[in-house]
């Protein structure tokens, strides 16, 4: 582009549509209009950034033309004579600066009533007015960005889909970049352009310049765009971290191998020994096996009964009163990250957002990560279509193996800004005050508390018999067994959702194991091993109970497989585990997590009992001599009734009186559990890391609401 060509369309007033500082640094200048097209001359080496900067001028198509630096400088000198040189200070300090609220009113993007409402909330939360308006959905991020840009006289830039020069974008350390929300996007000479969601503090600005050894210029961009850019820039590295951090940090705790070498040797040795024994003394060997299984089963039953009875009638979980919640000063509330892994759940994202909006927590302090798999375009599109406010962030997890929920959570955790974080499933309905309860609970608990588990149950418990059984089981597990474990100070296998963590501690432990399909249970054990405590909180999240048998079996088979994985991982070195946990916790771990093995035993014992009753077969009688028979009989009569009755008590402890009669039919449910357990056990061998996806949204009545 020659000077003559530019002269033909030159209009010096047009140049002022862009910030002089940015124009000069980037070597870009708007010089004329051609219909709805803004003509921009650029000598920039960062042409794409220059174009995006130009695109920040609303209402115009941009045509970027190359020009020499001399021409660009000349055009800028003409548009900005020396006398007009701007003060290189924040306009916030200028007395004539309009307030953000006034600007918004002036632009007509917010009404006076909305501004007043936001100001009232500002009084309560101490948050910035703009943030409140954006997070409450009154104005969009883009509108706010434009206003801030005007307010601070800082150029803004649209980074949607922007592919940064990797060398420039990674010129700051990733952790620094992520923590501070700064992404370098362009470089011009010694000047580095960084995209920021809010203006840099003088200290941070100085630190940045010290780090880069040159000048730093800010370009305002939406937080969403910055996060997306970070994903594009650091995607590969992030995926590596999300997948391998635990494996590299503590390989002994990672389920990337199903069996360690020593376990393989032990297992084959045991199998060989058993076979030899079976050949040499068939009946005696079978009696020993039967006896050991019976004793184990009985021990599991009695331990669960003890735990449940401990909790029955007692308030063992952390209780937070309404008064304690009311006494919270919202200005002191920390940012809270919510991780929501979603896969093939496009149909529920609307409900999900509505549910999360009902949370009683300042929106400006929510950091909601919607974690979608790259191949799940349907869910991604559904989320984008909702145009959610910026406390929702869509994080697209790059496609790689293992494709598991924990890997997605780890990925989300990399971007988490919260002091605390929690996992919810897509269909979850936490108590509205759950986050505040967790804050109070963390604050009044000992320092070693790293995790708080909220109770889980189901909103569709009355849908059919399966959901009733499932609700009863959860009532027993979360209202009796887990509080019992909590009381005993032993490892708590966490439930799949509503686990509230101190974020730093979660990171310190390497977060979730992406290779473990019950990463929650595993993490509960690792927390305990690391010396941190977990407690149960008196707050409930309602989920959707699986209402279809096939779907339920898939879900339960994953849970069983995960428990077996978890047991195998932590039992790689039983002596070390014993020394790490202590005897009480070691036994508890084996009876609770290892207790999942009893579901494998059930069908065998049921079959033996049935065959014996029908045939009086002598060989079965032979397997149950004396003491073995007593243990087995206790297991049959005491163990089964204990489980059944604890189910019943759990339902009533939660106030589900209407489910009581269904608890009496629980043995049929255990049959399904055994089916799922065997599926899980077989899959542990054939597809150890395969994530059996649970289909949600089967509750049609609720879904239609």
């Amino acid at each position, binding site marked *: 582009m020659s000077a003559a060509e530019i002269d033909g369309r030159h209009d010096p007033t047009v140049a002022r549509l862009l910030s002089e500082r940015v124009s000069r640094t980037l070597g870009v200048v708007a010089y004329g209009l051609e219909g709805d097209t803004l003509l921009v001359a650029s000598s920039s080496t960062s042409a794409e950034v220059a174009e995006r900067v130009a695109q920040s001028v609303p209402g115009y198509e941009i045509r970027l033309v190359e020009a020499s630096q001399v021409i660009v400088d000349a055009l800028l000198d003409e548009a900005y004579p020396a006398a007009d040189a701007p003060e290189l200070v924040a306009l916030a300090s200028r007395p004539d600066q309009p307030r953000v609220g006034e600007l918004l009113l002036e632009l007509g993007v917010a009404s006076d009533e909305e501004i007043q409402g936001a100001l009232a909330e500002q009084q309560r939360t101490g948050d910035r007015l703009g943030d409140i308006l954006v997070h409450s959905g009154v104005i969009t991020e883009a509108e706010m960005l434009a206003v801030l840009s005007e307010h601070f006289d800082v150029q803004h830039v649209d980074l949607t889909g922007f592919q940064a020069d990797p060398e420039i974008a990674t010129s700051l350390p990733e952790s620094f970049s992520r923590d501070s929300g700064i992404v370098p996007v362009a470089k011009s000479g010694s000047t580095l352009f960084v995209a920021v969601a809010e203006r840099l503090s003088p200290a941070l600005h100085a630190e940045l310049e010290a780090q880069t050894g040159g000048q730093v210029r800010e370009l305002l961009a939406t937080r969403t765009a910055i996060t997306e850019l970070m994903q594009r820039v650091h995607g590969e590295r992030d995926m590596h971290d999300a997948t391998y951090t635990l494996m590299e940090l503590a390989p002994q705790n990672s389920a990337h191998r199903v069996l360690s070498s020593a376990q393989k040797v032990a297992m084959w040795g045991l199998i060989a020994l058993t076979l030899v024994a079976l050949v040499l003394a068939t009946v005696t060997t079978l009696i020993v096996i039967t006896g050991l299984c019976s004793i184990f089963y009985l021990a599991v039953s009695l331990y669960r009964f003890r735990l449940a009875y401990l909790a029955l009638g*007692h308030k063992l979980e952390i209780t937070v009163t*309404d008064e304690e919640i009311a006494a919270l000063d919202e200005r002191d509330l920390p940012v809270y990250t919510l991780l929501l892994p979603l896969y093939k759940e496009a149909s529920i994202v609307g409900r999900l957002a509505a549910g999360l909006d009902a949370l009683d927590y300042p929106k400006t302090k929510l950091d909601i990560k919607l974690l979608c798999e790259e191949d799940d375009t349907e869910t991604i599109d559904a989320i984008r279509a909702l145009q959610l406010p910026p406390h929702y962030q869509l994080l697209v997890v790059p496609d790689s193996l293992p494709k598991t929920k924990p890997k997605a959570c780890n990925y989300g955790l990399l971007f988490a800004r919260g002091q605390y974080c929690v996992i919810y499933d897509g269909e979850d309905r936490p108590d509205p005050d759950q986050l505040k309860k967790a804050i109070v609970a963390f604050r009044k608990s000992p320092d070693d508390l790293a995790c708080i588990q909220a109770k889980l149950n189901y909103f569709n418990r009355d849908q059919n018999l399966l959901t009733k059984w499932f609700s009863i089981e959860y009532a027993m597990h979360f209202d009796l067994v887990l509080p019992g474990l909590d009381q005993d100070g032993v490892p708590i296998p966490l439930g799949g959702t509503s686990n509230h963590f101190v974020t730093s501690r979660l990171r310190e432990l390497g977060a979730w194991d992406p290779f473990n399909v019950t990463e929650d249970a595993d993490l509960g054990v690792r927390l305990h091993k690391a010396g941190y405590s977990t407690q149960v909180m008196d707050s409930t999240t309602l989920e959707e109970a699986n209402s279809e048998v096939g779907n339920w079996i898939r879900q339960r088979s994953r849970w069983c497989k995960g428990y077996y994985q978890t047991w195998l991982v932590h039992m790689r070195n039983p002596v070390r585990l014993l020394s790490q946990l202590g005897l009480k916790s070691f036994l508890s771990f084996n009876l609770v997590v290892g207790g999942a093995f009893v579901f494998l035993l059930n069908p065998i014992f049921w079959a033996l009992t049935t065959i014996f009753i029908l045939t009086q077969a002598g060989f079965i009688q032979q397997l149950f001599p*004396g003491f073995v028979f007593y243990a087995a009989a206790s297991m049959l*009569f005491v163990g089964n009734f204990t489980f059944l009755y604890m189910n*019943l008590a759990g339902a009533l402890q939660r*106030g589900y*009186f*209407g489910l009581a009669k269904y608890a009496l039919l629980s043995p049929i449910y255990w049959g399904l559990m055994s089916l799922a357990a065997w599926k899980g056990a077989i899959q542990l061998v054939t597809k150890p890391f395969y994530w059996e996806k649970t289909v949600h949204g089967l509750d049609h009545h609720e879904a239609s609401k």
Partner: protein
Amino acid sequence: MTAVATPPAAEAQQRAHDTPAQSDLVQLPPRHSDEGARGRRYESLAIFFLFAAAFGALGYWVVSVLHVVPFDALDRLTRALMVWHNDPPKLAAIGFAFPPLTTVVLLPFVVFSAGASSLVALPVGSAIFAGITMVGLNRALDRAEVGRLRYGLLVLVAVNPIVAFAASTGGGDIVGIAFATIAVAALVGWYATVDTRYLVSGGMAFALATVASYGFIPWWLLGAALVGVTLSRHRASDDEIEGSLILFLAPGVFILGVWILFNAVVVGEPVFWLTDAASTTVNAASSGAIPADLGAVLSQTGELVLLGAPLALLVLPALVVCAAVQRNELAAWLAVFLLVAIATPAGLALARDDLAQIDLQDALPIFVISLIGVMWLHQSLLQARALVLALAAVGLVISIPVAWRALDVYPYQSMEQAFRAGLSTREDQEGTMSRGGLEVGVLSERAMAEFLGGDRGRVLTDNAQSFGVIALTGRPSQFLDRADGGDAAWRRAAARPPADVKYFLFAKNASGDELRSMYPLAARGEDPRFLTVYDTPRYRLVAVPTDLGRVDAVRAGDLPTPPTTSGSPATP
């Protein structure tokens, strides 16, 4: 209802689904904090160990030194021993003669046979359940806000001679009493706090009580009525009434269901346990029914209450007055419980036409309900608490000498008179006679057991009569008895003994000894083919002649499986 708490918001939201708006009763998921629980636990442990140790020591002295051993206790001890040490070990040895739990609770103490041969299992077993009873009473007294005076009341209960006998000599009654105490106290707790936890503990305790003594079945049903009616009167939803009743009744239905199933499978008669079984205690008159007309039954019941539980005479009217004046529903329910406790043995006596069914130990349930009545009166009559306590203390104090006299004069009893004589004289009661003609002591059994020591060979015997000898040997595997392969197999074996049977053991004075019936001359030592090898006042051991029709030696384990009843309940 005296207490209706408010649920927290989150659970109220949940419960709105289940509880209709018009209900004025909120059965809560429990709201108890753990505060004070540790202290209560330590207190309960202290109470338990204190009383269990005291009763255990007393029992050891009574059983081992004074040789006052109730025969029914000895019978159950033998059955328990057979469960572990028979050849083969056999759960069926528990039999159907006694409520099963009274035998089952002895199992832990005879895992090592020395627990049986030394008889230590008896006082230890009963002392443990007495300790549990005391803990149950203490917790109930605490909930009734009796304060530290409750310890004094507990001591007065413990020194009551009828209680002390049951608590120390291995009798089965104390097992049922322990669970019934917990159960009724739990019902009171539920009524006062509307906490479903008490329905769990009450339901489970009643279930265990019913299989420790069938006399508690009416209590259990009455408890269910209390729960249902109370909830209904407070307009609880149908779901809540149904759920609560299921929670309360399920353990009892299950445990009795299993018992009925066993009866049906093993003896082919589902209600065998009700029609043919004995109570926990077998008294002197058990061997022969004493006709019972209504007048005699009423008179005997009056004597039972007057001598065994005079406290009831104070408590029953007080409960009735409290129910009427205060419109206190639970007071009315407890009055009904008390009447049921009094009427149950009377009803049994009428039903079986046997006055001896009104046993002295039947005073214990009446005594326990009276105590719980006192607690509820204390809790309800806020203005008259001191008076209630004073009257209770007086009633308990008076009960002691009255009960002491009852041990001596009440006609239908086990070894209570010998117990009293032993405590009075501190002398060995071996060989003396207790009320009803029961001979005290186990000298004969011990002598025979010692003779059979070593490897003397297999002995065929009717264990329903010779249980004392079997227990004291500590080796039930040495005996071919009715528990081994069932009654039919045993009868066949008795007719044609297996080759390895060297001896027959007869109970000389027991008319129910089937072996004696089959070989009457041999039992009297008059059959020249059967040489008497050893003889004691109660037992005769004879050698089985080789020319008696024999079958090949068989292991008992190879004999056909039950049915067995292991014989009738023990009689001396």
